[in-house]
């Protein structure tokens, strides 16, 4: 009856989720502690283009919020995003 295999492959931690965890762990968890792409790049050691991709997707899913400060777009993990990250650690 089942269309699924008897042994399911275990998923790996998605890359964008690992990125969300890093953003959370460095403390970008509220508007006043939001970071711009250059700051995120320094913390995470990732290219700006990759960061933009992750942020775009995470923003779409509601796990990251953005705000404009002094002409610079800043990003922080939303409350939904924080809860998602913490599920990995509990």
């Amino acid at each position, binding site marked *: *009856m*089942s*269309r*699924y295999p008897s042994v*399911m492959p*275990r*998923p790996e*931690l*998605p890359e964008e*989720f690992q990125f969300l*965890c*890093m953003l959370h*762990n*460095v*403390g*970008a*968890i*509220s508007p006043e502690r939001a970071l711009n792409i250059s700051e995120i790049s320094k*913390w*995470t050691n990732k290219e700006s283009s990759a960061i933009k991709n992750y942020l775009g997707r995470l923003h779409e899913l509601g796990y990251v919020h953005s705000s404009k400060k002094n002409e610079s777009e800043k990003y922080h993990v939303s*409350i*939904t995003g*924080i*809860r*998602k990250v*913490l*599920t*990995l*650690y*509990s």
Partner: protein
Amino acid sequence: MRICLLSWEFPPRIVGGISRHVFGLAKSLAKMKNEVVVVTLDFPGVPDYEEIEDFKVYRSRTEVGHPNFLTWAFLFNHFLEKELAKAHKDVDFDLIHIHDWLVAPAGVSFQHLMNKPLICTMHSTEHGRSGLHNPDSYMIDGMEWWACYESSKVIVTSQSMKGEICGHFNLSGEKVDVIANGVDSEKYDINIDRRDVRRSFGVKDHEKLILFVGRLVPQKGVEYLIQAIPRISGRFPEAKFIIVGEGWMRSHLEWLADQSDQRWRINFTGFISDNDLIALTKSADVMVIPSVYEPFGIVALEGMAAGVPVVASQVGGLAEVIEHNKTGVYAYSRNPDSIGWGVERVLSDPGYRDWLVKNGYEKVRTQFSWTAVAEHTMDVYKRVLGEG
């Protein structure tokens, strides 16, 4: 008694059962005229300090972060120590009670600095959650052992957990006390418009609402429920499935649901508020707990308190909370056919369903209160302080 509870989770920072446990324990210990202080981590939108239900809450802000999880965990422990020192200026604690390894460094430091006894509740283990598979997991395992070693007493929530930690950490059984979790049953004594609640989640009056609540992580076994859906909906074409919770596996589980032709029946809600969760639970026809690892399973108590029949894997603490064919139905773990069988058993026999609900409701109200948890915890504290 002056008690300090140290936990990285505390409402509204709700991740798993620890948050509910620490809140319920703090509230009941305070009701018993103890001076209770909770020290925890910050969360957006809540104050650094507040007084709730006769106890105090200090929230520590981690002012320096780091992308690596373990480095971040050690950093927040330093800031917790700072907050503990602040709280200790107000209250000369008799003891400190930590919850899980994540706050062990701060708790152990405080114990030695202040020469006060340390008590540790182990809510789960790394070995049980995900197995020891990389250097980080071995380190967490070591931290868990260290927290148990440094503590005067270790508390666990089920006999199953006692067996697990005594065996894995080579602890003497005398050092470990079992105190089952509780549930605030009164929260469920509210009137709801069942029809409205169900409609707000896309479930019509005549449809069967099958509910899962929990973190979307491997140990919760949600994939086995999803695999059981074709069988259940074959028997009950009007079945709808609501999956409440967040987790890193969510995209995978949604993908899994997409692979079936049953996706339209399944609603992933994400995290929902406590009030919505209570109303939804009371409106469900059956609650499924397909866990593969569950030290206790507080969600089973919540289902029973809400008057919903529970179908659960016979693993860990769940096997102690539920009596098969009396307060719930057991299914084999990791077995979609068995989960499907359990759900069908409940949905196909209204008399049997009512019997389970009645027994579960009575059991929860008489055996699983936070007052009972606090009384047993006080016994442990008194023994540690030489008063018992």
